[in-house]
């Protein structure tokens, strides 16, 4: 549940980024490049977050404090 919620947040960021690039008023080729960059960034960040999130769902070890 939390995972999909987080993914939705990243999708919202992507939508925002898409909007910013789309209405930026640059020539078409620059817009295409910027779309690619924004999408790649969102995907990379989502991957990083998702992996760390999923890895902590059912951890196999427990934090043991040092005396």
């Amino acid at each position, binding site marked *: *549940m*939390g995972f999909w919620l*987080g993914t939705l947040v990243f999708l919202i960021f992507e939508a925002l980024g898409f909007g910013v690039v789309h209405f930026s008023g640059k020539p078409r*080729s620059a817009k*295409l*490049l910027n779309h*690619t*960059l924004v999408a*790649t*960034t969102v995907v*990379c*960040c989502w*991957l*990083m*977050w998702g*992996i*760390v*999130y*999923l*890895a*902590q*769902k*059912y*951890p*196999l*070890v*427990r*934090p*043991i*404090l*040092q*005396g």
Partner: protein
Amino acid sequence: MELFRSEEMQLCQLMIPAEAARDTIAALGEVGMLQFKDLNADRTAFQRTYANQIKRCDEMARQLRFFTSEVEKAGILVAPRLSAGQGLMEFDALEQKLGQLESELLELNANSDRLHRSHNELLELQLVLERAGTFFEDARSSADRAQRESATAAYADSTRTPDIGAPLLESAQAFEPKAVQLGFVAGTIPVEKLAAFERLLFRATRGNMFLKFTPVGSVADPATGERVEKAVFVVFFAGERARQKILKICEAFSANRYPFPDDISRQRQMNAEVNGRLRELHTTLEAGDRLREGVLQAISLNLEAWSIQVRREKGIYHTLNKLSVDVTRKVLVAEAWVPVAAKARVQDALRTAAARAASPVGTVFQPLVTYEQPPTFFQTSNKTSAFQDIVDAYGIARYREANPAVFSIVTFPFLFAVMFGDIGHGIIMLMFALLLVIRERKLAKQDLGDILGMMFGGRYVILLMAIFSIFTGMIYNEMFSVVTTWFGRTRFACATDHTLTDPVTIMMNPDSCPSAFSTGLEMTTRGTPFAFGVDPAWHGTRTELSFLNSMKMKMSIVLGVVQMNAGIILSYFNQRYFADSLSTLCEFIPQMIFLNGMFGYLCVLILMKWATGSTADLYHTLIYMFLSPGDVDCGGKCPENKMFAGQAGLQVFLLLMCFISVPWMLLPKPLILKKRHEARSQRSASYGLLQPDDNAYRFQRFTDEESVSGESAVVGSSRHGASAAGHGGGHEEEFEFGEVMVHQMIHTIEFVLGAISNTASYLRLWALSLAHSQLSAVFYDRLLMGSIRGGGSPIAIFIAFFVFTCATIGVLLVMESLSAFLHALRLHWVEFNNKFYHGDGYQFMPFSFEVIDKEPL
């Protein structure tokens, strides 16, 4: 998107009327969008048409370099060029003026040297007069004294002739004075040579000489003009032969001799003369220097403009040398690569140049058909040029192939950040990058030196690296190795008492939760972990590393498989663009099957294990997938390894698919290419209509060694533009089956073995991030916290903080970031690029004044 594939290029032919040639080329240099092919490649530099002009340009360049060095020596600053037309002169007029200035300057220099030399000689003469004068003074006074003494002491000894030279000999009293006239030589000699000089004189004259010397300090040597420590000496000798020897020895030791008169009155006269001449020389010298400086000032005003002009002329003549002269000698023919998008600008420039040269005929500008591979040209802005340079350092992209820079702009800083994740270090790096970016314009004009210049060139790379580092730092939850609680409360609590959630409190009162130190804290909300990043409870625990290592290693594998898949998909885009469906069937599909059958499946298992909390041992699963296929739970003894129903069957299926894909990658393509070649050669042996698919614009993926010809590709309108593969323009059909097979085998082996090694290579992401966080923790714990734990005196803390700062900046921010940069670069260049990038193109290097102006003279 212009950065994804290189610009479309076209080979054009220009026919330039001979009288307008120079102006036309100059106009084209302003546009800067044409790369001229060398049509006279078989001729040497001396055989070319404009070799003479180039020699003249070289001569002018040498003169300008001479002026530059003279101006710099005089300490005058060279003024930058004020306007484009400043100092602009005709070529011949400029040559003449430069020659004139050079001879003037050389003459002034020679005069100045001569005057300086005389000046120094006179100074030395003055010193000699002074010092040698004192010798004789002393001698005379001691002679008088000795005479008086001997007169009083040895009253009767009147045979002794009062010789002015005699008392200089130390044992004058005991010596029988001979009636010999002593000659002497006076001069100056460098102090360091004095000992050797004395020894040699002694040996040469067999001891029959006397040398008296005194050091006079640092004097400007007339011959060299430098200041040397010198000494004034006087050598006394007897006899003509000794005199000759001594003169020769003085010459050998470059001792300057000066005529020193015996008489004291003549000495005084000479002194007065020397002083007078020195004064004259001073005024002459000053006047000469002022004149010289004036000339240099005048030169320095125009120096920059002339340098630029000479450089441009040289460039123009080099280009003109590349053109071939038509039979009628009225037209020069040029072949040049031009980006299709720049054709309009080039045509405009040609028109204006023709108008300016007032030639009756304009330049003809028409496209040519060719099978040659065009150069690669990417239009980069100042923000993207650094990333493109990084890709180009690996290899220039082949014409119109997918450019990895588009994705590297993001993935390179991202992978750097995975290895460098720390909020605090990221912030410091961000401040540095912002400093470089905000003062961009000012810093661009300065000469920053090698290291800082390189960092300035990559300022946008550093900026992105810093921003991503802050993000990954927030995910790893590390700020200078201290954990942050910005994203909420920890999900862990004491196993026995769920209200105790703060690890710090538990550590302060260990009795409140003894289980925390033996079996550990418990996650209160299993299945709903910390919302963003690593839970802060892990920091400082005994099991922190075992948890983080497992997580980071799996993360590296997942990121690696994703990037490699992206690379293979890019190769598919290339194959689709060049209409190479054979490669798609015989390379792309089996590669995807092989990589994803093994490592994609591993990633799926990783994700499943995380999502379900299974305790399966994935190492065991993957290894035994190959060792004992079909047996997932080791014959019932390890039931936890079975993660889903049908896993055994799926694994066997994937294994079979991987086995099939290897010969699929290896065999079909060379065999099909061979059949195509045979079919083509059969067809061309008989006259017939060209088959429809011969006319298709085909760009066959060609190997490094041989060229497989494409069908009749026509340059010009279509986006499958220029070519079939021919190295060097041949559309001859060369097809060596042996070579193609070997090449395919190398490719297959590389991919199959690389699948494992490249995937494992991505583990460096884990390794470096572990190293970074451990180093950072050690510096924090031992330096900062150590000084507080060990007493806490303010001075100790101050010193410890200083050492901590130096360690952070030196080791973590400089060394670690260079290391992470290098490894991220390697991951891109090897593991990502070798899935799709050919990188065997050549750079588009147009004839452009912008480029030429920046070159050194």
